[in-house]
């Protein structure tokens, strides 16, 4: 598994992650400073005097030069200290520890559903291109891409929660506390999130599988006398696994972003809600903390993808 080539890939990727983290948090920090609004005014409350606001700025270091503020945040973050919220005074790390599991659960569930449904659909469509099942899958795929997930989320709530009363409409429960309740809360948001992903996995898998099945290497397999089943399951799927991995990895990254909207629809106290509230209040330590965490997750996912690439395709590691 971990030969020297792969270790080198991992080392290089981890080094590349450092500038990515610094740059992305810097850009977000700069944007927060550019947009109008001031956290000091919020903290001072209604009808506060200019002097009070100035005191608060002094207290939180908000009157320091921009680069110095960013530098001191980065220095602390590098030492594992993500500071505290300016509004609630809760440690940002604590907020993230509370919110991240909810987000990860629905993203993971959505990713799982996208593969569970998308892969069989893609295979079914690819084995009989041009047939009714192919047309059906492609129609579903177009629909899945076209339907906005927040709207689908509202429809799901209206039907499954309000009409049928099968699943809870809003909120989230910790997986540790009550796994069953936690899953039942996560199902609808995950379905809303997964709809586009199912479509994408099915479409991409279909097109790469159709290409492989009509390739010269598959003609050789027919010439050897292989039955279509082993051509598809043994050779076809192994050949398209790299493409599939690319699709799933990109999808995972996108779902992490798309969860913001879906969390709002289902009132889930996840990372989406955390960053939206933080941005509204110019509570920059919270925003920075969330961005920092998300970048780390994405970098880790991409690293994992790269390692899997070299496992699946012998041409990549050598």
């Amino acid at each position, binding site marked *: 598994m971990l030969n020297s080539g792969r270790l080198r890939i991992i080392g290089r990727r981890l080094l590349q992650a450092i500038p990515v983290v610094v740059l992305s948090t810097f850009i977000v920090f700069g944007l927060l400073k550019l947009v109008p609004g001031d956290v000091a005014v919020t903290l001072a409350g209604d009808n506060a005097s200019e002097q009070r606001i100035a005191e608060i700025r002094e207290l939180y270091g908000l009157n320091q030069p921009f680069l110095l503020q960013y530098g001191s945040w980065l220095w602390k973050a590098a030492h594992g200290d993500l500071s505290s919220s300016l509004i609630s005074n809760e440690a940002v790390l604590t907020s993230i520890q509370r919110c991240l599991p909810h987000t990860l659960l629905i993203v993971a569930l959505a990713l799982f559903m996208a593969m569970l449904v998308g892969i069989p659909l893609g295979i079914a469509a690819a084995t009989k291109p041009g047939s009714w099942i192919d047309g059906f899958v492609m129609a579903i795929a177009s629909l899945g891409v076209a339907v906005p997930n927040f709207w689908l989320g509202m429809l799901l709530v209206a039907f499954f929660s309000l009409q049928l009363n099968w699943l809870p409409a809003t909120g989230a429960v910790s997986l540790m506390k009550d796994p069953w309740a936690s899953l039942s809360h996560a199902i609808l948001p995950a379905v809303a999130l997964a709809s586009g992903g199912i479509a994408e996995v099915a479409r991409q898998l279909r097109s790469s599988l159709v290409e492989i099945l*009509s390739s*010269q*290497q598959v003609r050789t397999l027919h*010439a*050897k006398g*292989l039955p279509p089943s082993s051509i598809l399951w043994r*050779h076809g799927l192994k050949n398209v696994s790299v493409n599939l991995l690319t699709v799933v990895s990109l999808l995972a990254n996108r779902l992490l972003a798309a969860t913001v909207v879906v969390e709002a629809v289902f009132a889930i106290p996840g990372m989406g809600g955390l960053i939206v509230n933080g941005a509204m209040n110019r509570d920059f330590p919270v925003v920075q903390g969330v961005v920092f965490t998300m970048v780390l997750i994405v970098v880790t996912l991409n690293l994992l993808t790269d390692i899997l690439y070299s496992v699946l395709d*012998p*041409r990549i590691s*050598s």
Partner: protein
Amino acid sequence: MTGVIDISAPTSARVAGMPDAGVSPQPPLLEVRDLSLSFATARGALPITRNVNFTIAPGERVGLVGESGCGKTVTGLSLLRLLPPQSARIQGDILFNGTNLATLSPRRMRAVRGREIAMIFQEPMSALDPVFTVGDQISEAYRIHFPVSRAEGRERAIAALREVGIPAPERRCDEYPHQLSGGMRQRVMIAMALICKPKLLVADEPTTALDVTVQAQITDLLRSLSERTGTALIFITHDLGVVAETCTRMITMYAGEVVEDAPVDDVLTRPRHPYTSGLLRSLPGLSKRRGVLTSIPGRVPSPNAMPAGCRFRSRCTHVVAGCEQSQPMIEIESGRTARCWRAPELVLPGAVN
């Protein structure tokens, strides 16, 4: 059938007259009768070949030549029914040891593929599966047809690699196609094709994608393996030099039809069809020492606009009134046929004098 009358020379006469089969008339290994292929397109069926007839004796090596698009590759693929079943239409009979492959069920056809008739292709890199080791792919070809263990499959794969002249086969067995050179890959393809000891090997331009030096090695290998194992060989190529070195008989195709079928030595010295003669005279280095290289003027008619009568006549220097008549294959002498009604009278130059 396409509705065009085509009187071929009696098959038995041609078999009897074959050069290697002089002792006693063997039953043919393969007999292709009136094979017409067409592809379904949005604007109707596009005819590719028409009434192709030929026979292959056991152990015989036959070159199938002609320019690109003449139908030689699709004819080769059709023998194993490897053309896309959704679009390709096969008419006629492909009798292999008396069994008609054209009408065989898919399951029984799979038992023939690789076991009785094997095929190798032009581009070994794209013909091999890049994510499996060559050993896996070779042993897979054996284990489909013979129920042996994984370990024995591997042993056989190593033996097959040694047979085709790959050094250190135990190591090469675990390598992937991208780790091998082009010539090595084609050797792997040959090892894979011959591992079940098929009776017929169809080689579709196996040397076209290779370096010139490697081409000769692969050609020699195919010939010596065919001689040693008694595997008949259909060598599809446009390289007449390869045919001269490897084969005993040459079938020339033009615009989807067989135009000449003759022993190699005879056809090289005295071709009977003007197209074969044109091909032979276009060979560099053989016909002339200096001067402009001979070429055949004009181009092949398009498959959906084939002229009636001789399909070569718009490019032929010997064309006369009467060439627009339907041209059957006529027997010129024992074992030689040509699709030209003037063949008996014409004296055409070949490549060797």
